[in-house]
């Protein structure tokens, strides 16, 4: 029954149990590849994708170019001592909100519209559905972020000149940032799958991004000094800064470490989401 060849001759016990009708279209088991193709169709056929990614690109370009042009007009000589690439930070920080939104909506819109029941009826393997969503979303978010970050960095370097950046700096400021935002988006996807409510999940994720810094602002007491330092060092804005080599503190994760941390966190939450999805009623 599962083999594609010659349906007319399949008179196995299963075929008998399922009834006398045999489809002329050959049947083969569905795969993760099928699910990825399906998710790609889904993500490209809704306006939310164009909106969120479009806004992100626009934000990164305007903020990145704006700061570069302002600095160029201000000191007429660029910033000789700071690496120019770090200017991309502001655009990426704002753009991360868009990636979070798209990540949550990738699964949240299915719950919001009831589409999830249709999807999980068509593909009862919930792990496969979530994996396909994660692959398609992460690839898209990574590609768009990396390309935009690279364009912004190149333009900023052209406008300001500044100190020459190493190849590793360039890699972290483009591919690294792209991967980091994709991983942050995957975390949002996982949270969206667990919460099943778009607005709730987006709020949670914005809280995750902003709250540590805001909390740290109010921790003046000496006894909280350690907590404050931890919150600042591991806050997502500071981690993005670390990818650019500009952090608020001297210690804490640096280089590629923030990316590793975010990937581990996203993997853990997605794994939890699969486990919960498998147990839960839809």
């Amino acid at each position: 029954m599962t083999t594609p060849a010659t349906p007319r001759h399949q008179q196995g016990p299963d075929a008998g149990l399922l009834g006398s009708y045999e489809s002329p279209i050959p049947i083969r088991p569905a795969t993760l590849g099928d699910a990825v193709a399906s998710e790609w169709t889904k993500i490209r056929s809704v306006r939310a994708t164009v909106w969120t990614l479009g806004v992100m690109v626009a934000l990164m370009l305007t903020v990145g170019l704006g700061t570069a042009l302002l600095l160029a007009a201000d000191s007429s000589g660029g910033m000789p001592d700071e690496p120019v690439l770090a200017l991309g930070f502001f655009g990426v920080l704002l753009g991360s909100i868009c990636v979070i939104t798209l990540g949550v909506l990738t699964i949240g819109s299915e719950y919001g519209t009831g589409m999830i029941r249709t999807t999980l009826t068509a593909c009862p393997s919930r792990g496969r559905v979530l994996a396909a969503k994660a692959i398609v979303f992460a690839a898209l978010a990574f590609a768009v972020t990396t390309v935009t970050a690279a364009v912004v960095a190149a333009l900023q370097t052209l406008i300001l000149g500044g100190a020459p950046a190493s190849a590793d700096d360039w890699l972290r400021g483009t591919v690294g940032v792209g991967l980091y935002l994709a991983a942050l988006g995957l975390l949002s996807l996982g949270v969206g799958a667990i919460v099943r409510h778009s607005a709730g999940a987006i709020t949670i994720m914005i809280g995750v991004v902003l709250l540590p810094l805001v909390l740290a602002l109010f921790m003046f007491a000496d006894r909280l000094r350690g907590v404050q330092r931890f919150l600042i060092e591991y806050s997502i804005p500071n981690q993005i800064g670390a990818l650019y080599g500009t952090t608020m503190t001297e210690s804490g994760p640096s280089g590629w470490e923030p990316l590793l941390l975010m990937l581990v966190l996203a993997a853990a939450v997605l794994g939890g989401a699969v486990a919960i999805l498998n147990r839960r009623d839809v």
Partner: protein
Amino acid sequence: MIEAVGLTKRYGAKTAVDDLSFQVRPGAVTGFLGPNGSGKSTTMRMILGLDRPTAGHVTIGGHPYRDLPNAPRQVGALLDAKGVHGGRSARNHLLSLAQLAGIPAARVDEVLGVVGLQDVAKQRSRGFSLGMGQRLGIAAALLGDPQVLLFDEPVNGLDPEGIHWVRNLMKMLAAEGRTVFVSSHLMSEMALTADHLIVIGRGRLLSDMSVTDFISANSADFARVRVPDDGPGERRKLTASLIEAGGRVMTEPGGALRVTGLPLPRISDLAHGCGVRLWELSPHQASLEEAYMRLTQGLVDYRSTDDAKAGLVEPLPQDPYGSADGFASPEPVEVPQEGWYAPPPPVPGRAPAAAPAPSPAATAGPAPAADAVVGPSSAAAVAEPSSAAAAGEQTSKDLR
């Protein structure tokens, strides 16, 4: 072939589906009937592996749904027309579902044509009417050319032409040898479409039999008997005589008697035998829809407060016949419906432990109170032979 065994689903204290066992066979349209909230959709969701049963299991072709290697190619389902992302075009919606099962894209255009949505395929489904949404859902179910099809309320929101089309589609799919399982709360619709009926109420199986059997077992034919108004004596005499002969007697608002379980000539003979004149002796046949409502009346969860429908179904007086004027009637039958309007659930053999107590209809709902029934408590067992024969195994269980 769908097979449910002891299927149970509880949400906290509420039991949505209670020890449901049934089989849905290929080559026929099987109607799945029950009032709102009786557990039809929950059962459908459990069949499709969306909800996990609290107890029991359900298989399709011998496999649990979630173990099927390519579910849409074996089972097509229309759950609710809302299961669509409104921002996506009809074609892209179906394309994404087709790709999920490795179905070629050409098939998408094919099913769009089958359901008549080819002209709006590029439009976003948010603007679709309820009927168009139903057609889109049916297209999704047909996409994989499956052997088993489940439709949850497929005619909701369809125009008469659409209803006619769905009716023929179901019959055609079944004629091709597929298993077709259709839920509805419209008895009249099912009477035209289905070959077999599974009726549930409050999550329990009420009836599992062919439509013809269901009609003969549940249509509740009765005879109206009117005797002269010159005092209760004649009525009393006749009632006692009828009950003695195995009939069941109810009173109607106008004072007429509603007799079931006895053929008309026999009633006439009995009246003659006890010297009672008859002013009226007429046969009446209740509609199938009324029979269905009788079957489920005690099990309706959501009822308007003025209870208009129950009033329509049971135009009987509040006071039981004879109780007002001291007529020494035999005690009222405890289970008015059992063996008469409601065949007992056919499951006990399979799941004896949880076999439902007498009948949910008896314990639930206030409606039967208005329906004063006098007759020996064994009357249920001596149901009219034709109904017993027609109901087959179900009724035979009642003759304990």
